[in-house]
């Protein structure tokens, strides 16, 4: 395995650029630009730019993936005309939205109306800074990266509510209310399901959690936690069957009714960014991240960028399951959703935590075998 990491690429690129710049500059300026702090700073900036580009690109491809899958589920072909199999359709749509005028309702509160979508977008994007994608793409080697990711993830209801309220539209307000209620209700089971994973892996670091799954992935022993996590994640991502905040049948478009043009695109992108984060978290926590089981031939896991390949494959398959659910289920009602959340999901997630504790105690689970190193 090569030791090339994303950060070393960014740092190398920065020092190359600054070195070239310094070679044509006079002495004092040369010393200034080749200063190690400057190089490191530029390296971090390039690193962030790569992260940004990668996350945006993935999000857009994710939308394409959803459209194609939905099309097949619905007995049609999905986007077909722009690019190969419609691959560039979303770029075209994005440019169209980018060119559109931004319309603010006269009675809307400008501060909330404009900062809401921006903050929603930014917080959704920051999460990518802490998500490890493979051994080389491991920006989030923080000891508490999981906690940080979920903490940023749960900012969203605040910004949704701010932008809904400041739209000064009754539908937006109702959508915002529903969104806040729903996300707060499902935050608890989501975190409890994560607690189960943390108990078993003994770490809040996503990288450690992935490496702890070398022997078996957690989806089997922590199946209850997986179910709770996926269901709660569906609610957090506001996808059918839990897309009540933007239930278009009764609330027009929910909390983003008043948004158009680029602001709407912000919401759309942020939604899919969150969907991507959700899928990635499922892969990291339950499906072994970028690792593959030992019975997979080594040729399949040792080619360049194999980790990223397998990781993205898993992520897209997980998202495909979300799309499948979206294509086949109706939407529930707010009261039913909240009742399920408080009355069913929380006991179920407590059960998952309990099972995780049992698992740590007995250290063995059939048919996955025993792990001496398991637990703290």
């Amino acid at each position, binding site marked *: 395995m090569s030791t090339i990491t994303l950060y070393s690429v960014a740092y190398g690129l920065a020092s190359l650029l600054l070195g070239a710049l310094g070679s044509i500059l006079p002495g004092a300026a040369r010393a200034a630009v080749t200063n190690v702090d400057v190089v490191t700073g530029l390296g971090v900036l390039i690193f962030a730019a790569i992260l940004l580009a990668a996350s945006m690109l993935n999000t857009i491809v994710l939308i394409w993936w959803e459209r194609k899958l*939905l099309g097949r*589920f*619905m*007995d*049609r072909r999905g986007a077909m005309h722009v690019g190969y199999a419609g691959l560039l359709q979303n770029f075209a749509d994005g440019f169209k939205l980018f060119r559109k005028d931004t319309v603010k309702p006269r009675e809307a509160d400008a501060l909330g109306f404009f900062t809401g979508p921006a903050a929603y977008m930014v917080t959704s994007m920051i999460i990518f800074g802490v998500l490890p994608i493979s051994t080389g793409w491991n920006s989030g080697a923080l000891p508490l990266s999981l906690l940080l990711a979920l903490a940023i993830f749960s900012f969203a209801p605040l910004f949704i509510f701010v932008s809904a309220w400041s739209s000064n539209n*009754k*539908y937006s307000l*109702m959508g915002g*209310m529903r969104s806040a209620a729903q996300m707060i209700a499902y935050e608890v089971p989501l975190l409890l399901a994560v607690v189960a994973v943390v108990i078993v892996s003994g770490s809040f670091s996503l990288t450690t959690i992935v490496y702890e799954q070398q022997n078996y992935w957690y989806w089997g022993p922590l199946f209850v936690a997986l179910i709770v996590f996926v269901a709660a994640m569906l609610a957090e991502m506001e996808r*059918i*069957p839990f*897309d*009540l905040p933007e*239930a*278009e*049948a*009764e*609330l*027009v478009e929910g909390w983003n009714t008043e948004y158009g043009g680029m602001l709407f695109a912000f919401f759309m992108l942020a939604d899919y960014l969150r969907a991507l984060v959700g899928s990635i978290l499922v892969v990291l926590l339950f499906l072994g991240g970028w690792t593959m089981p030992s019975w997979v031939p080594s040729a399949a896991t040792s080619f360049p960028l194999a980790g990223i390949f397998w990781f993205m494959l898993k992520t897209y398959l997980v998202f495909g399951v979300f799309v499948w659910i*979206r*294509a*086949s*289920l*109706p*939407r*529930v*009602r*707010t*009261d*039913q959703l909240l009742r399920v959340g408080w009355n069913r999901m929380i006991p179920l997630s407590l059960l998952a935590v309990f099972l995780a504790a049992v698992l740590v105690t007995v250290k063995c689970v059939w048919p996955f075998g025993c792990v001496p190193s398991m637990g703290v």
Partner: protein
Amino acid sequence: MSEMWINMGPQHPMTHGLWNLRVKIDGEMILDVDPEMGYLHRGIEKISEDRHYNEVITLMDRCCYVAGLAWEHLYIIASEEALHLEAPERALYLRVLCEEFQRLASHLMWYAAFVQDIGLMSPFLYGMRDRDLILDLLQSYTGARMTYEYMRVGGVRSDLPPGFTDRTRKVLDWLNARFVEYDQLCLGSDIFHKRCDGLGILKANDCVAHGVTGPMLRSAGVPRDLRRDRPYAVYDQLEFDIAHADTADVTGRYLVRMEEMRQSLRILRQVVDWLDRHPGPVMADQLPRWLGAPYAPVGNEGYLLKRHYPKGLGFSAVEEPHGEAQAYVVNEGGEHPYRVKFRSPVFANISAARQYLIGYRVADIPPIMGSVDVCVGEVDR
């Protein structure tokens, strides 16, 4: 949250048309509703007073854009009665063929819209896809997909193209298999039952008092269907059952409409069998010239030249896909009808909105109004 009025419409995804449901809500609870109609009012009754009898047929297609032929049928029966004309038997069968096709197309359209209202995405496309098969069949003998202008006072415009009945049988078989899928997608889902059971209840007595007809009335346990209770055209010679349910809620209306589609398939099979066996004229021989008769009957040219204005009153009632439609045509002797009055079933069904909406939640409005199957074109006329 305090009480507030919200306008669901005139441009709102729930409305499926152009109307405004004003809803007074407290949080998510519905305290009061006030439907506002008229956004699509074109004055069809007034325009009809200025048109020849056959020209009104064009307007009937615009009355209900998903069941134009049923409205043509309604108007044709009433005006034939007012003008004392009769259509040949084959034309009557062709009209029944049209009406049952329209019932299927309309119910499929309803299915598509209804499942989307409760958030099911895929069956929407399935419903539209299968409706297109019906529209293709209709297009092959009327030449149009939505605005047909197929029926005429005294018959129908043209006979079926060759090979039509075989194609129809294929489509009927296909649909019969698809309806199983439809039921699996809806009734097989727990969330569907959570969203639809016990919602929008309108008991039989309230239905009758508020003039509600059609699938809504039948879902309340009253098996009333004009095709059987007051047979028109050739419905008395066809075998079919009246679909009905007892729950009086959204699920009941769903079941009734699905069963009606199956019964329509049954009727259509009998009709195409009959049409295969009985060729014949599709237009009455002797029609007054001012009706715009399609050809001059040989040896009867003098009749055509004579202006002959009989007086008369015509009333007809047709079991339209949405319910019970009526037409009242007053013929005062003249080229134009003196007065035409239509009764739209959806008009009455919406007028009872207060009875079946108050007390439920905002999120229940789309399923409930979806189960009413609103077609604004015929409400506003």
